[in-house]
Each structure stands twice: as C-alpha cells, then as structure tokens.
C-alpha cells in the first residue's frame, strides 16, 4: 500500500522549507523568521481570518490567501513581501485608523499597542481617508475594566478567548458593517453581566487600547498574553 507523506516541501520568498501538513503558511513563516503582519490571529485561539493583513501571494493561485488560515501544500511557492502586498497592508491599517479614534498620544496603550507597532513597521505615515466618526459607546460599568469601543478594531479576540478559553461567552457582536460593535451579554452594561467572571483574559488579548484596566495613565497599559498558548496546550493534552 502506498504511504502518504505528511511532510510538505515548499518555497517561501524563494527559500526552500519543509513543513508538516497541519501547519499553516503563517506557522512555517514564523519558524523561519519570515515576518508576516497579523492582527486578528493570536496563538491559542481559533483562526478567524478577519483582518486580512496576513494575505500572501501563492504562485499560480488566482486569489491572495490569508497565511493564518491556509494550510501548506506540496510545491507551494509563497511570496510574503511584494509591492502589492505592502500596499494592501498599509491601506488596511489606514482604513482602521479612519474608522475609529486611534490617537496614540492620549491612549493608555501608547507604546504597547499592536496596531501602532504595525502602522510604524508597515510605514503607514498618513491617512488619506476621511474619518468615519462612528458613534461608539464607552462602557465603564465594570469594576476593574473599561471597554472603549472607539479604539476597538473588531479583531474579535475578546469574543473568542471568552468563549473558547474562559467558557463564559460574555462577548459577542451586535450590528452589521460599520455598525458592528462588541457587546457583553445581550447588549447590556458589562458591569451587570451575569456571565462575566472578571478573569481579564479579554483585556490581555486585546491588541489595542480598547479593553484596558481602570486606573492606568497614558502608556501604562501593558498586556500579558503568555497564558494563552499554555492554556490552550493544556486543553489539547487533556483531550
């Protein structure tokens, strides 16, 4: 009987690499020190494929593919850094900046923000789009935490960590398109939530200054995400 190889060989930016068939393009790229920008993806949570920053080109494929959500295949020739991709990535960050309040100078996450870091790294130095100035409410009703929806980029890490790791499913999304908002329980104040365990996982996975601890001054909010791979690995071992 023919045996099937689970090891795939492929090329990233012209370099030969090998990978296990369960790995994604992003996994392999990280292993080999190839940078691909990501925002919605975070190790330990299910893949969402929402931010589209990790899009890469695969030779012979008609569409760009999200590196975080695409498994490796034999013979793939992947390009992670082309003029076109750089352009798209800058524009995606620009769109995010045009959508909310991302004024770093007055943000508790200044200097510790994934969006800010990406904007710098990808060379987004100005925004060509008008600010959409949506009406987005701030929720300060929780004892220890704050949700400022004006800074939210809808990566939905909070929704996933609360559902998948904490098991509380306090967060979800309400509304469509520009009206989409993260809400707790049935769009009731966070402080009144019957499901929230106040574990703070959502605050720690939030890449920006949308979910933060109370009482932090500008630039003081530092997030800790190292618990995530640990917890999700524990689950897999138990399974």
């Amino acid at each position, binding site marked *: 009987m023919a045996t099937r190889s689970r090891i795939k060989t492929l090329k990233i930016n012209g370099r030969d690499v090998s990978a296990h068939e369960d790995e994604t393009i992003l996994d392999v790229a990280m292993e080999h020190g190839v940078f691909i920008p990501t925002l919605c993806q975070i190790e330990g949570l299910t893949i969402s494929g*929402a931010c*589209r920053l990790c899009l890469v080109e695969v030779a012979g494929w008609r569409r760009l593919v999200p590196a975080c959500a695409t498994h490796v295949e034999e013979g793939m020739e992947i390009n992670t850094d082309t003029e076109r991709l750089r352009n798209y990535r800058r524009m995606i960050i620009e769109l995010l900046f045009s959508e909310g309040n991302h004024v770093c100078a007055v943000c508790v996450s200044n200097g510790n923000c994934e969006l800010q870091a990406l904007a710098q790294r990808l060379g987004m130095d100005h925004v060509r789009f008008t600010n*959409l100035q949506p009406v987005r409410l701030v929720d300060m009703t929780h004892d220890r935490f704050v949700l400022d929806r004006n800074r939210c980029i809808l990566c939905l890490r909070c929704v996933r960590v609360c559902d998948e790791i904490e098991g509380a499913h306090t967060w979800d999304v309400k509304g469509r398109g520009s009206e989409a908002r993260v809400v707790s329980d049935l769009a009731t104040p966070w402080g009144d939530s019957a499901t929230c365990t106040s574990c703070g996982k959502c605050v720690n996975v939030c890449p920006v200054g949308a979910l933060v601890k109370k009482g932090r001054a500008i630039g003081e909010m530092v997030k800790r995400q190292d618990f995530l791979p640990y917890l999700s690995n524990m689950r897999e071992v138990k399974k």
Partner: protein
Amino acid sequence: MMTYDELTDAAAEEIARQQGYHQCVRVCMAAGCLSQHHDAIKLALEQAVKDQGRAGEVQIKGVGCMGLCAAGPLVMVEPEGVLYERVSPEDASEIIAVLGSEPVQRLVCPTDVPFFERQVKIVLENSGVIDPESIEEYIAAGGYEGLNRALTELSPNEVIAELVRSGLRGRGGAGYPTGLKWSTVAKAISDTKYVVCNGDEGDPGAFMDRSVLESDPHRIIEGMAIAGYAVGANRGFIYVRAEYPLAIERLKLALRHAKRNALLGNNILGTGFDFNLEIRLGAGAYVCGEETALMASIEGKRGMPRPRPPYPADHGLWGAPTLVNNVETFASIAPILRRGGDWYASIGSETSKGTKVFALAGQIRNTGLIEVPMGITLTEIVHEIGGGTPNGRQVKAVQTGGPTGGCIPEAYFDTPVDYESLAKLGSIMGSGGMIVMDDSSSMVEVARYFMEFCMTESCGKCIPCRVGTAQMYRLLDKFSQGRATTADLDLLEQLCDLTLNASLCGLGQSAPNPVLSTLRYFRDEYLARLLPAEPALAPAPDSPAA
C-alpha cells in the same frame, strides 16, 4: 407503505375528478399578485360560480406565479387558454358569465407575444399551472418520478453521472458545476452528512427563488431528496428568509404532504432510504446567503462568513460534509432525473447548459419572472421579451447579478447570457436579477446606491469590506455631489482593487463590481462630476518672489 404506483394512481384519480369540470379558472396566488388583491379575486370567482349555478362545471384553482407580474393580478381560463390581466374582484361575475363564449375583451392579455413565446420552462414548468398546495397535482405533472427513478433504478454514482452529463451549474451565483459538487460530498467519508437548500435570496428586486417555493414547493423537496440519496445524507435543511411567509407556509404544507405519502422521512417509497427535512428561517441579512455564514446561522450562531477552504463539502454543518445548493439548482434536479442529463445538456450554450430564471425589474415594460435558455442575448431579453422601456426612452444599461454585479451598456447587448460572457464584460450571472436602466439614470448614482447596499449589508468581520465599502460610499457620495477631485478618483480605484482582492467572502470581493463596471463603460460621467481644477495660486502682491 405507499409505492410510487399507488401514488400515481391517487394522482390520476384527482386529475380525473378535475376533468369532470368543463372549465378551469386559474388564479395567481403568488405573492406578487396576492399583494394586490389577497384572495378576494378567488373568492369572488367562487361566489360567481355559485351564483350563476355552475358549480361542478367550473373549477376555480389557486396557482403559483404566471410570470407577467407587471400585468397582475392574472387569471387564466382553461381549456381556452385565455389570459386576463389586471383583474379585480368586480370582474369576477363577468368572467364566469362569458365562460365558453367570447372572452371579456377589455381584460384579455395577449399570449402570442415574445414574452410568452420565447420562454422555455423547466424550473417554472409547473408555476402558474398546478395548485402548489396539492401534492396530487404535482405527482400528476410527473412529480416524484425523478426521485422514484433515482431510488429504484440508479445507484448514487449513477445519479451523479446523470447530473454531470446534464452540465448543470449552480444557480446561486458562482456557477460551480453541480455534478462536481455532489461527487465531492459523496466522496467525503463521514457517517453524518447534510444537504442544505439556500433560499436566502437577498438580492434586492430578485424573487426567482421565492416564486419557485411559492408556486411549486414539492420540486425543491424532490430535488433535495435526490441529492440526499446521491451524496449519502439523511438530513437536510431548507434555509428561507423569514420575509417570505407565503413560501414558508406552502413549504411546510408540502413537507407534511410528502411525509404522509412516504416521499420524505424514513423508508422513502419502501426503498429503505431515509431523508428528513427541516425548515430554518433567516432574519434577512444579505450575507447569510453566503454559504459559510448560512451554515453558522443554521447552527444558531451569528451569520458571519469564515475563510474557505475548508469548503462545506468537506467541513460544513457541525463539521460534517455538507452539500449547499441554491433553490433554482435543486428545482432543476427532478426534470434532469426524469428526462435525462443529455436532454438538459441539449438546451443552452456551450459552457452554460439549461435554462435560467431572471427577475426583470427597473425601466422595463414587462416586469416579472422569465425563464430562458442560457445563451440567449441581452437584446432578446430586454427588448423582445421585456418589451423595452415603458416610456419609450432609450435603454442605457442593464445591471445583472444583483447589487454586486455589473452594469452592461446597451452596446454589448448582443452578448449571449452565460457565465463566461457576463464575466468578460465585468459583470456576473449572479442569482438572476436584471435591472434595466434608461437614459435618465445616472451611473454614478447607480454605483452609489449599490455601494450603500453593500456597506450596510457587510457583516463587519473583515476590514477591507467593512471599512472599504464605507469609504467607497463616501467617495461616491462626493462624486454625486460634484465635490470629488482627481485624487478621490484615484483613491476610489485603489479601494476597489483592495476590497476586491483582500476581502474574506464574496460580498466584499464583488462589492466593487458596480463601480468598476460603470467606471469602465461610463467613465465620462464620473469625470463630469469632478470639481473644476483649482486655478494655480497667484503669488501674493507683496511676496518676495514678486
């Protein structure tokens, strides 16, 4: 346990009973006509029959959509084949009084016109003919013969082979080969598989699927049961938007009748094949028509798309292999099984086989539902079948493919309507909406209108679509107010490119189509709305350079 022969006998009895009548008056009871008269016309006709003492002689029958909705409410008299248009309840006694003699001239709608003569009906063969609430009439019209043939004469692989031969492609928009999709699900290894019918139909102005569900619900049940047998699934879901109450009601009734007659449930027609169907209601989000969002919705989650692959055929409902097809796709299955794949493939064009149902809307005389062979030209559809514009104005363009389709200018109307030709023109087949525009329409406004639709219907998950459509809408708004600059035009084109290539699902990936196609064919309309170029600033009188 009923066998198929017993069923056809029962159906034949029903037909014989109907033939006891000298005349049959068919009244459209589909949503288009119903919205104008509820069931007042049917009641008035029944009353007139009673009053004139012709009960037992004249049958009044509620049927589904007859297609020419623009002229509704419609009433058809058989066997004479006289069609009455714009009928009101007050006309009832006159219509009944003249049965068998000269028809009421003032109400007669001619049927020897291209609108009726150019159509080829497969999906709509029973629409407007049979009573959608009677399973006997469906069976008498050849219904469930395809299912019986599949279950008793063919193996699942032979069913799929028949479908491959037919060349049928998915009618939900993308035109994916149906036989290929079925064989992929059939090959998936799993104890549990599902069949899902996509009846979300979110395109504004489209009502092909609604009409099929309202006029001939058993056709969908039969198509899905055949699919279940072919791919190895025992459970299916019909996802219908909640805004279609009549379709849901008729579907529920049809499901009950089918179960009672051993055409659904356990041990169908005594063959040992089990197939159960449930209805699921959608809350009217356009994006829930996207198959991964639709499945999330059926699972009880928020209807948001997820990246594909994995495709539903591999990882669908609750992780099981799932076949998702459109209503019209399922509606084409029974005729193919009954008459053979080769017969179906003999209709249509080289790459697109069979017929397609279109909903004609906009500036066109004969708004309504038509079914035409693939490969027919846009001219034939718009000018001959559609009858051109109602006010005699010049036709300017037609938008095919719904809100994320493209505008095709009149100069290209000799193009055959098939998946490839439409794509070449920058549009898509989509689910079958056709909006005709005359020379009074502004293409910038058209693009802005459709972008507004996409912006509000974007699910909000991915950035290029959520923010990209909102920004494109702002830019189009600037054009429509004559405040745009050449930089805005450049930005608009860049955003189209980004949204098209970087969005997660088909909504974002096709949202720029109306803008791109109007920019391609009507660019001067955009240019005409640019701000006059700023005059170079004259140096100030006291500046050092002066």
